[in-house]
C-alpha cells in the first residue's frame, strides 16, 4: 500500500496543461508582432545594456517579416487564453481551491523563509498546506499578471472602443509597454517554474499529470524530525502531524467519493486495521 494525497484536481491539471501551449503560442506570436516595432531596451542615458531583441536572436528564431502571421495567431489564441483563464478562475472560486493559493498574512515573511530554505541557508521550511508561502505569492501574482495581459492586450487591440481602459493604463503606448513587460515577467516566471519543478523532482511533476502526490515511505521519520526541529508545530491545528490524526476518521467517506474507478482498492483500505496505518505510530510518538 502507498500513502498518497490527491494534490491537483483534474480540472486544475487540464487548465494548467492547456495554458502551457496556449501561452507559448501567445508569446511566440507576440514576438512576431513586436519585431515590427521593436523599440524597447534596457539602459541608462545613451548606453544600451540590453536591446529587445538582439538581431541574432531574431535571426536564430526566424522572426523577421512575419507580422501578419503573428497577428493572426495572436488574435485567435487570445480566445483560448482568455476562456481557459476565465474558467480556471471560476473553478478556483467555486471549488474553494483559491484558499490554497492566495497568500495569507504570514505569507510574505514565510516566503522569505522558504527562499532561505531553498537556498540551503535555513534548515527548516515553515509549515505549509498545498503550496508554500512563496508558491502562493508566485501563483497569485501570475494569475493577476494573466488578467493584466488580457487588459493591456485588449486596450492595444481596440484602443478606441476601450478608450477608458486604455487611458487608465496610461494611454496606447504605455499599455503596449506594459503588455510587453508582463510578457517578459511571464517568461521569467516560466524559467523559475521549470527550475523549481526540476529541483522538486519526479513525484511533484507526476502529481501535475496524475493528480496524486505519493508520500515517501519514511513519512514517519520525516515528520518526526520536522516536529522535533520545530516543536511549535505540534500545537498548531495546521501542523501536518495533528491534522492527519484528525482527518483519518473521514478517510472512509472521501475514499468513496474520490476513487470511483477503484472501488476494489477502496474497500481494501476500509477494511484495513488501524495497526497497519503507519501514521498511528507517529501520533503515538508525538503524544
Amino acid at each position, binding site marked *: *500500500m*502507498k*500513502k*498518497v*494525497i*490527491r*494534490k491537483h484536481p483534474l480540472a486544475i491539471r487540464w487548465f494548467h496543461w492547456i495554458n502551457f*501551449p496556449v501561452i507559448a503560442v501567445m508569446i511566440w506570436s507576440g514576438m512576431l*508582432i*513586436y519585431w*515590427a*516595432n521593436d*523599440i524597447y531596451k534596457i539602459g541608462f542615458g545613451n548606453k544600451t545594456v540590453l536591446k529587445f531583441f538582439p538581431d541574432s536572436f531574431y535571426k536564430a528564431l526566424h522572426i523577421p517579416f512575419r*507580422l*501578419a*502571421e503573428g*497577428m*493572426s*495567431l495572436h*488574435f*485567435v489564441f487570445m*480566445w483560448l487564453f482568455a476562456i481557459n483563464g476565465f474558467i480556471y478562475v471560476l473553478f478556483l472560486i467555486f*471549488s*474553494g481551491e483559491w*484558499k490554497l493559493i492566495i497568500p495569507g498574512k504570514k505569507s510574505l515573511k514565510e516566503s522569505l523563509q522558504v527562499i532561505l530554505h531553498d537556498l540551503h541557508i535555513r534548515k527548516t521550511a515553515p509549515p505549509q*498546506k*498545498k503550496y508554500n508561502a512563496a508558491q502562493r505569492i508566485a501563483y497569485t501574482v501570475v494569475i493577476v499578471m494573466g488578467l493584466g495581459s488580457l487588459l493591456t492586450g485588449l486596450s492595444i487591440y*481596440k*484602443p*478606441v*472602443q476601450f*478608450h477608458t481602459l486604455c*487611458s487608465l493604463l496610461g*494611454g*496606447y*503606448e504605455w499599455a*503596449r509597454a506594459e503588455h510587453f513587460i508582463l510578457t517578459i515577467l511571464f517568461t521569467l516566471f516560466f524559467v523559475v517554474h521549470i527550475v523549481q519543478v526540476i529541483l522538486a523532482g519526479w513525484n511533484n511533476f*507526476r502529481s501535475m*499529470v*496524475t*493528480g*496524486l502526490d*505519493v*508520500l515517501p515511505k519514511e513519512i514517519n521519520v520525516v515528520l518526526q524530525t520536522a516536529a522535533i526541529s520545530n516543536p511549535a508545530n505540534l500545537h498548531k491545528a495546521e501542523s501536518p502531524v495533528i*491534522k*492527519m490524526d484528525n*482527518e*483519518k476518521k*473521514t*478517510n472512509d467517506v*472521501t*475514499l468513496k467519493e474520490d*476513487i470511483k474507478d*477503484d472501488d*476494489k*482498492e477502496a474497500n481494501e*483500505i476500509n477494511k*484495513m486495521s488501524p495497526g497497519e*496505518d503507519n*501514521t498511528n505510530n507517529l501520533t503515538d510518538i508525538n503524544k
Partner: protein
Amino acid sequence: MNYKEEISISEKALKRNTIISFTIFIALIIGTIFLWKKLHQEAQIAQAPKTLRKVLDANGKISSGFLSDNHLAKTYPASAAVKSVRVNGNVGMGNNFDPSSWMLQVVRNAGDTLLLTLDDIKALPKTEIIFDFKCIEGWSQVTHWGGVKFSDFAAKYNLNAQTQMNYAGLETPDKKYYVGLDMPSMLHPQTILCYEMNGKPLPMNQGYPLRLMTTIKYGIKDLKRIQTIFFSNERPRDYWYERGYDYFSGL
C-alpha cells in the same frame, strides 16, 4: 478545502493510475503537435490558414458589433501634433501621376460616376482631427489632419442608396493600392477625406491631393492618393488583407 487528506492505494492501482494519466498526457502532446502542424499545412484564405482566417473574420464581426459613432478616439491640441510625420509606404504612388488632371471618381452605380475636383471637396465644411495615428506595425504618432467628413460628403452628394451598402472600396490612380472599409467605419464622425496635414495641403508623399484618414482603423486603411471610391455589398479587394492581415483592422 480538505487538502492533505491522505488515502491509501495499492501499488498496483497507483501504477495503473500513473500509466493511464501519462498515456492521456502524451496523447494530448502528440495531438497538439499534430494540430499545430495541420494548421500550418491548411489551405489558406488570403494568405492566412483557413481556421485562423475564419476566427479573424468572426473577430471583425464582434468588433463591428460594438463599434459606435459615440466611441471617439481621443483628440489633442494642435500643439501636440508632430512636425515630421512618418511616411511608411509608397505602394500605389507611382511616378507618372499628373496632379493637374486629377479628379475624384465616385462610382454611384455602374456607368454612373460622379467626378469632383479638389475645390469641390474643399467647398464642403472642413473637419480637423488631431489624434494618435496608429500603424499596424505597433507605432503611433499624434498627427494633425484636415478634410471633409465622409458622412458630410455622402450627405451632400446624395449617396444615400450607396451608403446603405455594406462596404466602400478605395483605389489609387495606378490601382496598385486598394482598401475596403465597412460602411459604419466609413461613416464614423472621425473618418475624413483628407486634403490637409498640419494646416497645409497634403505633401505628395502623404497622398496629395486626397487621402483617407480615420481614427478607428490602422493606418493600412488610410489610402493615400484616392482616385476611385465605390460601394459594394461584398468586400472590396484589400491590399493588406490579401497579404494575410485582418480585413476589419479596426481599433
